[in-house]
């Protein structure tokens, strides 16, 4: 049994830290934050996403891979060779931690699509990359791309998040943004790929909740070429965000108006221009409305978005101090790393908080 | 101008205004109508009722039923025991108004006292009229049959198997006959007219009624006058001798008009009033049996001594007295009488073309002309008679309904669909939800 073979329900903890000025900081901080919410996880999955961590390779897609075995690795690498220029490849550095066991082969590739392949595919570069990621994940048995963005990376494993952080030596990375996830699945035997964050290109999603619209969303997004192999909420949410933001060109604020659309009664009370826009978005993408409890932190290149379901059925707190922005399932997870906050608040249900780097910073 | 209850006050009475003083002479139906109307508009003004009787207001037509045992003196009360108290009326019993002084706006009573008024209503009713008959003075047990006191007196002398002679086969005489029939007395009725109930029935219908009464052992001598009385024997004009123990005089009544006539107010047989029940003298109104008004069925002025009429005239007077312009222009003769289980209903005037339909004791005759129903006589089957009455009252053009049908069978079916919708309220129903 592994992720994707059944629908997996879970409760969770999420945390995120963002430097608006683009100042890079160590991954140590996010481990401190997430570890406070130890009891919101049950040791069956933890993970992190870091942004700005690969400045030297910032123009290349960083593929993080799990391999079940060397055969899979070989097959996958042959595939990568055929489609990409591999600039660098290495094992992802880890340290032995007693709590983390049964690790797969964990590799990292910095790649760029082969121009000839890209041209003949008639796809844009990012779509080409996405297609390749799906190809590997669905057709190369034992190989799984769990991170595929530029200048960012996902680190995840079976275990409590703080152990996962130490395992991946996260303190050795520096970035302008980190997100973290501690998982509390109700029934998973655990599979490393099923841990969170879930990522596609530079979108990474950590999610706390269990969405009731799952199958409506899944069946809808699958119509646009996405394959929901994991049967997790996070996966489908990531795809929806990718679809709306990257493929349909909606701004993240507009994305929020789709996935956590205001109630019709709220929309009716808005001024005409805004009302029409909200009506348009809600009706055009009706099946991408996500209902049921969720709090998500979406990482993307140059920014972070925190969003609650429209009824705010899951806790989520946001804090600010100078140029630092914090978001977590619990206020304590922020206070533990920065007790002297300028401002702390709970965003309303459906109200996306979107933070981006100040102009010129990266 | 308005009629019915749609009323509008043309005089504002508020705090600071002097309270009105209403005086009503008479304590019967018209007086009650007036009191109830005044109190609708004026809760404060004082009302004084002057009555020459000693009773709480009672229904005069019930005296025959009293004798018949169908009612009693308590149930005969036309309004409840608290009527005067609830309506804040000062009731002066056993007082007779002898004179009105319109310039001083006061009424002089028989005890010499006076009552001043702002608005005065004269509803003195009428009194039995007894024509001169030789030997009448010598008759011991003779009664009129008009008031409660009359009824009590008559009741006191009646004993089983007595012979009672009633002079007059009109309404009063015949109701009296029915009333006393309970006492197992022998009743004979004499009338100058050739038929019974001559003022309200035509020949055919009168014959039916007479036949019915005869079945109940009432003997009639019609087209006969009393030539003279000799002790307990009455001699008719054809020399028939009728022996009697008790004599009831029910020849007729005369409106009591002297109070108005004496001070130069316009009178005829009755006190002449307009459609607001005003007499010719300012601030003096008249209503009920003492008054004379237009019968809409014949368009003639007449005294219509009928209870419903009295109430509605009293009400009209009361409304106007208390400052609300109100017209009563729906007076017409109308009678509903039961005699020994046979019901007789009449209304209006018997002129014009006739529709008739009779079968044994069920008798129907409708009189119409100029597209209007003028009057009708119904005996026996009186179901829904009020529909005919309303045609007279409302002067309904007969071409607006199915006259043929309504002649056969009174009902709303004969009216147009629209009229029915109005009458039954359904007209608004059709627009619901539209």
């Amino acid at each position: 049994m592994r992720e994707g073979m059944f629908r997996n329900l879970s409760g969770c903890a999420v945390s995120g830290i963002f430097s608006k000025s683009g100042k890079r900081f160590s991954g140590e901080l996010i481990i401190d934050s997430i570890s406070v919410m130890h009891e919101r996880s049950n040791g069956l999955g933890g993970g992190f996403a870091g942004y700005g961590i690969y400045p030297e390779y910032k123009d290349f897609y960083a593929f993080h891979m799990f391999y079940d075995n060397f055969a899979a690795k070989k097959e996958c690498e042959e595939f990568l060779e055929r489609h990409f220029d591999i600039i660098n490849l290495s094992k992802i550095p880890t340290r032995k931690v007693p709590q983390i066991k049964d690790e797969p082969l964990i590799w990292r590739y910095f790649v760029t699509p082969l121009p000839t392949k890209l041209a003949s595919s008639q796809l844009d570069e990012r779509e080409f990359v996405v297609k390749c990621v799906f190809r590997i994940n669905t057709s190369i048995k034992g190989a799984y791309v769990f991170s595929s963005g530029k200048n960012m990376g996902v680190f995840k494993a079976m275990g409590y998040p703080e152990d996962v952080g130490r395992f991946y030596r996260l303190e050795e990375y520096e970035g302008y943004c980190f997100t973290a996830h501690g998982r509390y699945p109700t029934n998973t035997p655990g599979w490393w790929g099923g841990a969170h964050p879930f990522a596609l290109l530079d979108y990474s999603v950590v999610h706390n909740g269990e969405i009731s619209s799952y199958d409506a969303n899944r069946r809808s997004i699958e119509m646009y070429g996405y394959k929901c192999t994991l049967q997790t909420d996070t996966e489908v949410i990531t795809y929806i965000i990718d679809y709306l933001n990257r493929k349909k060109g909606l701004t993240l604020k507009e994305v929020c108006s789709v996935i956590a659309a205001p109630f019709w009664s709220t929309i009716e009370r808005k001024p005409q221009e805004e009302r029409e826009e909200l009506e348009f978005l809600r009706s055009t993408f009706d099946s991408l409305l996500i209902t049921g409890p969720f709090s998500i932190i979406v990482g993307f290149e140059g920014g972070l978005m925190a969003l609650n379901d429209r009824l705010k059925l899951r806790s989520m707190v946001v804090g600010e101090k100078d140029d630092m922005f914090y978001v977590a399932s619990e206020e304590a997870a922020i206070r533990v790393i920065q007790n002297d906050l300028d401002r702390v608040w709970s965003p309303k249900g459906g109200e996306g908080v979107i933070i981006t780097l100040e102009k010129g910073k990266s | 101008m308005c009629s019915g209850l749609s009323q509008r006050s043309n005089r504002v009475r508020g705090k600071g205004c002097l309270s009105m003083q209403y005086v009503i002479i008479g304590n019967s139906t018209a007086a009650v109508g007036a009191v109830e109307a005044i109190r609708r508009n004026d809760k404060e003004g004082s009302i004084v009722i002057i009555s020459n009787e000693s009773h709480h207001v009672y229904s005069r037509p019930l005296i025959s039923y009293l004798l018949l045992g169908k009612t009693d003196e308590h149930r005969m009360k036309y309004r409840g025991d608290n009527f005067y108290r609830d309506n804040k009326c000062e009731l002066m019993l056993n007082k007779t108004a002898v004179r009105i002084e319109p310039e001083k706006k006061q009424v002089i009573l028989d005890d010499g006292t006076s009552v001043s008024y702002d608005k005065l209503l004269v509803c003195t009713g009428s009194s039995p009229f007894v024509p001169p008959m030789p030997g009448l003075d010598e008759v011991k047990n003779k009664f009129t049959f008009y008031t409660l006191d009359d009824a009590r007196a008559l009741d006191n002398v009646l004993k089983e198997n007595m012979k009672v002679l009633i002079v007059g086969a009109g309404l009063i005489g015949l109701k009296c006959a029915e009333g006393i029939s309970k006492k197992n007395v022998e009743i004979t009725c004499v009338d100058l007219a050739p038929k019974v109930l001559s003022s309200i029935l035509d020949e055919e219908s009168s014959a039916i009624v007479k036949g019915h009464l005869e079945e109940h052992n009432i003997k009639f001598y019609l087209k006969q006058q009393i030539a003279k009385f000799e002790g307990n024997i009455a001699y008719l004009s054809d020399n028939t001798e009728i022996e009697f123990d008790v004599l009831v005089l029910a020849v007729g009544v005369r409106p009591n008009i002297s109070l108005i006539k004496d001070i130069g107010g316009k009178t005829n047989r009755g006190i002449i009033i307009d459609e607001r029940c005003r007499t010719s003298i300012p601030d003096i109104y008249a209503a009920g049996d003492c008054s004379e008004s237009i019968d809409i069925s014949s368009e003639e002025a007449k005294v219509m001594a009928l209870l419903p009429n009295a109430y509605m005239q009293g009400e009209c007077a009361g409304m106007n007295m208390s400052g609300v312009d109100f017209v009563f222009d729906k007076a017409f003769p109308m009678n509903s009488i039961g005699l020994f289980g046979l019901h007789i209903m009449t209304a209006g005037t018997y002129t014009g073309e006739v529709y008739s339909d009779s079968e044994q004791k069920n008798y129907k005759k409708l009189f119409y002309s100029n597209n209007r129903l003028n009057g009708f006589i119904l005996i026996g089957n009186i179901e829904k008679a009020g529909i005919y009455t309303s045609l007279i009252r409302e002067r309904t053009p007969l071409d607006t309904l199915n006259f043929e049908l309504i002649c056969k069978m009174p009902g709303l079916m004969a009216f147009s669909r629209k009229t029915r919708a109005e009458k039954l309220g359904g007209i608004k129903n059709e627009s619901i939800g539209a």
Partner: protein
Amino acid sequence: MKRVYVNEKWCLGCHLCEYYCAFASTGGKDMALVLKDIEISPRIRIEEMDGISFAVSCRHCDEPFCVKGCITGALSKNDGIITIDKEKCIGCYTCVLSCPYGAVQPSDDGAIQKCELCIKTHAGVPQCVLGCPNGAIVFEERGA
């Protein structure tokens, strides 16, 4: 003031109103027991002819000629409802002669009978209204 209104458009001529009325006036518990083998004498009556039918009952007029003409004071109007004091009524039928709707009938007990709006005993709605299967008889407020 709520009144009974009749719309002949919806009257089916089923006569149920008459039976419910007759039943209501008995105060009995079971219609079958009360009305079995008797000729009913309802206070509401259907007029019907040529496919047209409608129920007629007391309109509780604003200007009630029956009350004004009642020679005994047995009829009176209280809180908008015209009621009979059967004790006082002597069956002179002046009201039958006065009613423009034919909605007052002689009754078996010598007095008259008419609809007195059986709203106190039946959940605030007259039985004829409850019994009408098609909304031809309604009990509602309709202003002046």
